[in-house]
């Protein structure tokens, strides 16, 4: 299975994603420069974290106009699984593949710590091996991750079960104290209508081995491997 990891100028988690996918999970991974227009036979596209174009204008605002994004949009519209992590999520929002927008964190601080994510839905290619209500311990590292959705958009996301991850306590309880950045409805990740495009602020690729403090993020990648491999759902 081939993962294409898109590299924008200023991406800095592209190699974290490469390490997790290729070296930890043993899949084929290709780093695809943003000026390319060939996804090299990708089965899955990953938009990694970082600071594409130095976060100029708004996070993700310039990256969405990169030549490769036209191909990523086509891939997504054809039903291909796309995962946007952190800055990659911001790019998906700016590109209009996912609804809503990002604000500066509520307390204006850049937050770099492990948080707890509750899996809200398991019928996406990136959560099918997780169970609803399962809590994952995964790091965040962002200054602009305070997700905003208008009341209408939020109602639509709720009704169509498109909120995929929420910030909660270690026990999976929603509480404002655990909503690290102040996001609307404690939203950490969402999917599109087709459920094949998922974006989240936390970094599952940095939580794929016990040696880095948590392997809870593996389920995101193992899910898409299972989805494409046609393996039966485990657990």
């Amino acid at each position, binding site marked *: 299975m081939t993962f294409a990891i898109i590299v924008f100028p200023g991406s800095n988690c592209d190699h974290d994603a490469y390490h997790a996918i290729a070296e930890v999970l043993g899949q084929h991974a290709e780093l695809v420069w943003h000026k390319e227009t060939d996804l090299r036979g990708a089965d899955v596209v990953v938009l990694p974290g970082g600071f594409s174009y130095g976060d100029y204008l708004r996070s993700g*605002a310039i990256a969405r*106009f990169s030549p490769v994004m036209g191909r990523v949009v086509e891939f997504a519209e054809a039903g291909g699984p796309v995962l946007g992590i952190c800055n990659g999520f911001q790019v998906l*929002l700016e590109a209009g593949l996912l*609804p809503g*927008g990002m604000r500066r*964190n*509520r307390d*204006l601080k850049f937050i770099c710590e492990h948080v707890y994510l509750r899996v809200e839905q398991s019928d996406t290619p990136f959560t099918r091996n997780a169970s609803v209500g399962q809590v994952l311990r995964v790091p965040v590292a962002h200054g602009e991750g305070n997700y*905003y959705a208008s009341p209408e958009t939020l109602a639509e996301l709720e009704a169509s079960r498109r909120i995929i991850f929420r910030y909660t306590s270690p026990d999976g309880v929603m509480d404002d104290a655990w909503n690290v950045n102040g996001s609307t409805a404690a939203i950490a990740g969402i999917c599109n209508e087709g459920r094949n495009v998922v974006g989240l602020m936390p970094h599952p690729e940095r939580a794929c081995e016990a040696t880095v403090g948590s392997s809870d993020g593996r389920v995101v990648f193992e899910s898409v491997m299972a989805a494409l491999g046609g393996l039966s759902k485990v657990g």
Partner: protein
Amino acid sequence: MKAKVYVTLKPSILDPQGKTIAQALRTLGYDAITDVRQGKYFELEVAAGSAEEALSTASAVADRVLANPVIESYRVEVEE
């Protein structure tokens, strides 16, 4: 022709930077400043035959790129 674009967060969107600036101003004793909203300002040089054309182009650019209409609103002025 010069077009000026002002981008601000929509009134319904919390502006933590503006709030922090307002608090700092209160600390400095500027009690008359009751609120601050921070925004962005762009100056565009537009090659256009008329002010209407410049306004139309600058507005399109503001809507598509300079502002994120999900959270921001914008205002465009053209100087002849």
